[in-house]
């Protein structure tokens, strides 16, 4: 048996290796969809044209979770907007840490009729006003969680403000406002909790079962 030449061998190897830009778009989108939002934007989109096309499939952007302490907050904000654009109105679940602003919340609220879940962690740039506008524009919200967002419903959140949230979002099932130390859960407020299945309030004055 003749041994193949080096040239032949390398030719065989090249011919055998699949070119991963040639996967069907749906399969490629499934692959890329396993990555986090930031990896899709900052890495997968830069691989080649086909991967960029797959990275723009709106279904990929139904869920956007952005947490990265190493990236500039304004750059994260810009990327969140690209994510919202790519979702083409399908965004359902948004979670952000630190970088979120009132303006971004407005951008999201204006373009996301399907938004159901919002989680904000340590978003000091979000104000009560910005948050209220989001809530007012997204009556379909089912889950809201704020943690360490000092300027929203923070220590000063009043019963009226909570009542506003509850009235604005009749589908709310899960509400986590563990930093709202000013809330006094009285009978009036309790009467509005009708549809809520899970509620987290400050421990000191929380809702006792």
């Amino acid at each position, binding site marked *: 048996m003749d041994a193949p030449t080096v040239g032949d061998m390398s030719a065989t190897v090249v011919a*055998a*290796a*699949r*070119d*991963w*830009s040639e*996967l*069907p778009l*749906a*399969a490629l*989108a*499934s*692959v890329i*969809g*396993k*990555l*986090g939002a930031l*990896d899709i*934007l*900052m*890495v*997968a*989109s*830069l*691989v*080649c*044209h086909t*991967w*960029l096309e797959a990275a723009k*499939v709106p*279904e*990929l952007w*139904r*869920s956007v979770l952005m947490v990265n302490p190493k*990236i*500039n907050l*304004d*750059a994260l904000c*810009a*990327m969140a907007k*690209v994510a919202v654009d790519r979702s083409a109105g399908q965004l*359902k*679940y948004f979670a952000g840490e630190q970088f979120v602003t009132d303006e971004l919340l407005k951008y999201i609220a204006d373009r996301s009729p399907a938004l159901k879940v919002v989680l904000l962690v340590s978003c000091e740039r979000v104000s009560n006003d910005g948050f209220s506008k989001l809530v007012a524009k997204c009556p379909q919200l089912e889950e809201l969680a704020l943690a360490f967002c000092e300027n929203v419903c923070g220590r000063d959140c009043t019963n009226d403000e909570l009542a506003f949230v509850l009235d604005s979002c009749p589908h709310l099932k899960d509400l986590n406002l563990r930093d709202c130390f000013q809330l006094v859960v009285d009978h009036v407020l309790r009467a509005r909790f009708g549809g809520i299945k899970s509620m987290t309030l400050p421990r000191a004055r929380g809702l006792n079962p």
Partner: protein
Amino acid sequence: MEVDKGKGEAEETRKVAEADRDTVTLKSSDGKLFEVSKEAAARLSTVLAGMIAGGSIDDNGTDLKQIGSEALENVVDYCNKHANSIPSAALISSSISFNTAPFKEPEEWERKFVDRLSHDALFDLVEAANFLGMERLLDVTCHKISEMMKGKSPDQIREVFNIKNDYTKEELEEIRQELAWAFYDD
């Protein structure tokens, strides 16, 4: 109680016939035949389920011209060995399963199943799973691939997955600007 021998044999024949109907024969693009449990195929693949329900299954081997023998062997292996522990394809959200789909982490055996595959075999299996509408298998293979991508730069990914960089410098710059990533490294 005495058992009639003739009746027993008839029973055997009937059982064999029944067993025959319990499997489906699939034919790869290169003409190899594979037997797969009909129940498992129908449960794990929306496309095979449709073919079985629609009566378009050929007893002499249903042609799957898009799938090579190695990939089809992996598909059949996946179905036959592990059918019972896998949720039905219909239960997992239809369309393409993206990160909002309730993805269940791969089981230990599923991990081993994909870990032993070469890059090319993995590629072919993703293609086959996509073609056959096998949501769970697609999920597990895609999960494996995403693990292979973790922590890699676009350059490294191109190298691992044998992809040509078809961007011009200007195009790359344009995408970077669209995303406004001033990477404020300093």
